[in-house]
Structure formats: C-alpha cells, structure tokens
C-alpha cells in the first residue's frame, strides 16, 4: 500500500495538534493514518460540481426552525464559579496558573 502519510507528515500534524509522540508511535500512526486516508480518498471520485458544501444538517423544508437566537446582553452571576476554577489543574486564588506565554 502506498504510504500517503509519511513519518514526516505525522510529526508535522502532531506538532500542529500539540501532541507529543514517541518514536514507535510515529511509525504506527504513519501506517494507520495512511490506510484511513486511502479509504476516505474515495470521496475524490464523487461528482460534486454545483453542490454547495454542507457544514450542518439542520435544514428543514418549509420550516423556519433554524434562525438566529439572540438574548439580551446582560451580565449574569454564574452559580458555580468555584467548580469551574477547581477543574483547573493549577490554581492560585481566583486565578488559573499558566506557564509564561511570552518568553
């Protein structure tokens, strides 16, 4: 089978996706992703001239059910602020602690 996804491509994509891979994982994913891409490549043979892409299936004939829903722009107290902060692995007081972004 042709290797559509080389080890270099796996490394590049993993970097974009912020995933650290071990060396043997790079080899494994190169093989697996190649076979997945080989399979999904069948979409290339489908004639789609004149067809708009669909990003969402919520389209309904004769029913105007999908519309912009707006609400008043008003500040509301969230009931469980502590739970949100507590979910963070590193917290200091009311802040979520992060390694320095600008170095």
């Amino acid at each position, binding site marked *: 089978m042709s290797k559509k*996804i080389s080890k270099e*491509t*796996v490394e590049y*994509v*993993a*970097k*974009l*996706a*912020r*995933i*650290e*891979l*071990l060396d043997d*994982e790079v080899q494994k*994913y190169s093989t*697996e*992703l190649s*076979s*997945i*891409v080989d*399979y*999904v*490549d*069948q*979409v*290339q043979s*489908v004639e*789609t001239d004149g*067809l*708009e*892409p*669909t*990003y*969402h*299936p*919520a*389209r*309904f*004939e004769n*029913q105007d*059910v*999908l*519309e*912009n*829903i707006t*609400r008043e722009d008003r500040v509301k107290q969230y009931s*469980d602020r502590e*739970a*949100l902060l507590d*979910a*963070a*692995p*590193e917290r200091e007081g009311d802040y*979520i602690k*992060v*390694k*320095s*972004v600008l*170095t």
Partner: protein
Amino acid sequence: MKLHELDLSEAHMKLVKGEISSVELTTACLEQIEKYDGKINAFVTVTKDEALEQAKRADGLIKSEKATYLTGVPFAVKDVIMTKGIETTASSNILKGYKASFTATGVQKILDQGGVLLGKTNCDAFAHGASTENSDFFPTKNPWDIERVPGGSSGGSAAAVAARMVPYALGTDTGGSIRQPAALTNLVGLKPTYGRVSRYGLIAMTSSTDCLSVVSRDVNDSAIVLEAMAGEDVHDATAARLPVPDFTGAVREGLPESLRVGVPRAFFEEGVEKGVLEAIEKAIEEFEKMGMEIIDIPLPMAKRGVAVYYILTPSELSSNLERFDGIRYQYSAETDPEENPQNLYEVYTKTRGKGFGAEAKRRIMTGTFALSSGYYDAYYKKASRVRTAIINEFDEAFKSVDYILTPTSPSVAFKIGEKVVDPLSLYLEDIFLAAVSLAGLPAVSVPCGFASPEDNPDVTLPVGLQLIAPRFGEAKMLRVAKVYEQITDWHKKSPSLAN
C-alpha cells in the same frame, strides 16, 4: 419477575399502583449491578447514595400523585454526558477525576421528573469507537457472550440495559453509537433527528452530528424518554423550536397511513454476514405481512457515508478536543511527577500525548491533516460537498418512500480484540449508520432475530434492523417499529447471564 427485570413502562405501572416503591426498585437495580458488573464492566461510576436519595424523593412524588412515566425509575447515563457534581470522564484518562460543573439539558429534564440516576456508563473514550474497547479504563463485555463486544461507543449503556441492571440508559449517537450497540445487545436504540434534542452537556465530538439518544428494552420506552428529553433549549441554538409531539401516545396508535418502506438492497448485498442478511430478509417479509409496501430503492451515495464521516468527524473533533490542554481541566503534565515540561508548548504536547488514548490521537491527527493548509479543499471541503449529495439522495428517496430499512450492523457482536487492531475495520461497523447521521435523519434500531457469527456456528447472537425516517418523522417511524415489535417479540429475549 424480579424488580430489576422490569422495563420502564412496567416499572412505572407498578410504582403508580403502589405495588413497589422506587427505593425497592432502585435497590434491586443496584444489587444487579453489584452482582454482575464485575463481569460486564458496564459502569464507570455508580452513584448509589445519591440514587437512593433520589428514589426516596420520587416515592414522595408518587404518593402525592405527581408522578410522570419517569418518576422513580432508575436510568444510567453515558460518561460523555455532563452530570453536575458527578465524575464525568468521557471514559478518558485526560478527564479522570473531573466533576462536571453542570448537567446536560436532556438529563436534567429526566431528573426534574423524578428520574433516579444510577451512575455513568463506560464508552469508547470521547465516544470514538464502535466496540467500547477504546475506553481508556476497560472494555465492556456483551451480556450475550462476555467474550464479545457490546458495540459502541455507547456500549456501557447498552450492556447495562441488556444485563437488566437498569431499565433504560442514555447515550450519544454521532455516527451510529446508540443504534449499533442496541443491535448487538437485542435492544431498541433511538437516535432522534438532529435538532430534536438539545446537545447542551454532551462533551462534543462532531458538533454537526452529535445526538443525545436512548437505549431501552422496547419501542414504547424509547418514545417516553425521547418525549421527555426533546425540545428547544436556550443553551443550544441548533435545538429546533418545534413543538414536541406526543410520542408516548403515538406509539399506541398502530400503523400510520404512510406504509411505503424503501429497501436499498444494493447497499447491503455485499459485506454483510449471511446470518444477518437472512434475519433482515425475514424481517422484510414480516413488514409485508403487516401491510407495508416494500419498494426496492437505489441509494448509491449512502455507501460513501463512512468515508465522508471519517473526514468530517476527525476534523470537527480535532477542534472540539483542543480544549483539553492541561490548563482548564483535570490532567496536566505540569502536575504529573513523571513529567517535567519546560515551557507552555511542552505542557500542551506532554499533556495531550500522555492524556489521550490511541484512537483520540489517531482522530485528532487525521482531522488536523484534513484541515491543514493544502489539504483543506481536497478533504474537508470535498467531503462536505459529498455530504450534500448524500442529503439530496435521502431527500429524493423520501419522495417515493416513507421509511428506509437496512441492517443496523453488518455483523453480529464480534470478539473482543478482533477488530481493534485494525482501526479501519471498526470504522466500517458504521457503514449503514454514518450517512443517516450526516443527513441529520432520525433512525431506530429494533431487534429482528438472532444469527450465528461467522466464527462460531454453535452460538446465536442478536441482530438489529434500522428504520430511517425523514427529519422530525420520529412519531410515524416509532409507530411502525412498535407494530413490528409486537408481532415478532424478539425484544423479549434476554441474555442468560442476567437470569
């Protein structure tokens, strides 16, 4: 009949007649879990104390005659669905220990009616899979044969209901994840129309196809639960602002006036196990006897469903799973004594490298590839155009038929370890299901017989058929499914493990 063996409707009748209490029923279900879940591994969290508290409250509601169908009846929820204050991990290591900060709308509606939450069920991590083997914790076993998978990704929910641990359970169906496990465990699995039920509180995988769904023992029970969960939601702009039909009443009305069933034989003549095909052909004969008109239809685009799905799903989830970055939720390489990230970039890469399982990484990378510069048009955009072709094909088909019937799965339950070694072979489990999800259509899997797996002629395992309807056509679809169920009774068979 033992209390834990009651289905939702039976339990409701006994509760409102005062023959049993919710505490008794809940206790019986918890005992069944205790007795068999060591073998089945359906649950990742059992909320025993909370459940018994809820049951006591439910008994109060029943006494004051405020009971609905769901009051006092236990249910379980797939771990990819948020339940406030209860550990919600999506069966993933990266979220292990995470307690949800709010409850999903659909779950809340059931709790508001006095439903009793027994716990959270195992699934493929982040719902990525079709066998529950991709759970980062442990695989769930099929109660019909514990050497086999229960399907997935809602495999824990299906196994729990099949093993009579709970009368019904919620799951999600993004590309077949409630229908396929229902088929493999002799249950009813109902995926509503995209937009019928709010997605609020589902840990997002594929936002454009994710659906809160239900697995139950019969069609009636699925109708009851759908009616309870459905409707618009201020938290989900894609939840349709449409009135919720009386699904519970509808299923009692017998066959609707629309009787044309489209059968796309060309779609399933290849690659389906012989025993499954025989069960489906037998079911088609039953449909004819019911007075349904069987019409052979072509559905050539639907075959492309899996290919389109495995471009769009990884693309959408690669974005949705960006939020698991080691900063906002639970696991972080920064606090892991075995890791020593030197900068923010390494916090991200080490957290995600170690925290995500193999399938999540596979999908995130496939999606990142499909969306990356130079490939976006050839993969993501092209697949989105083919999606339009699939939708058009279904819409065209529904001009001449009222429902479409296919097998749910090409095979009966397969052995644990058999397919997980080849990711693509697992993807093909969704061959009859993915296109339906891409088009946002409602579909239900109902038991339609038993067949031997190709590796063992001495055993028989459940087979399911899928009935697909036009958007928001659940009521008629469920009426047809209910009549079929009544004349066949396959759904009444239960696995010996639970006896």
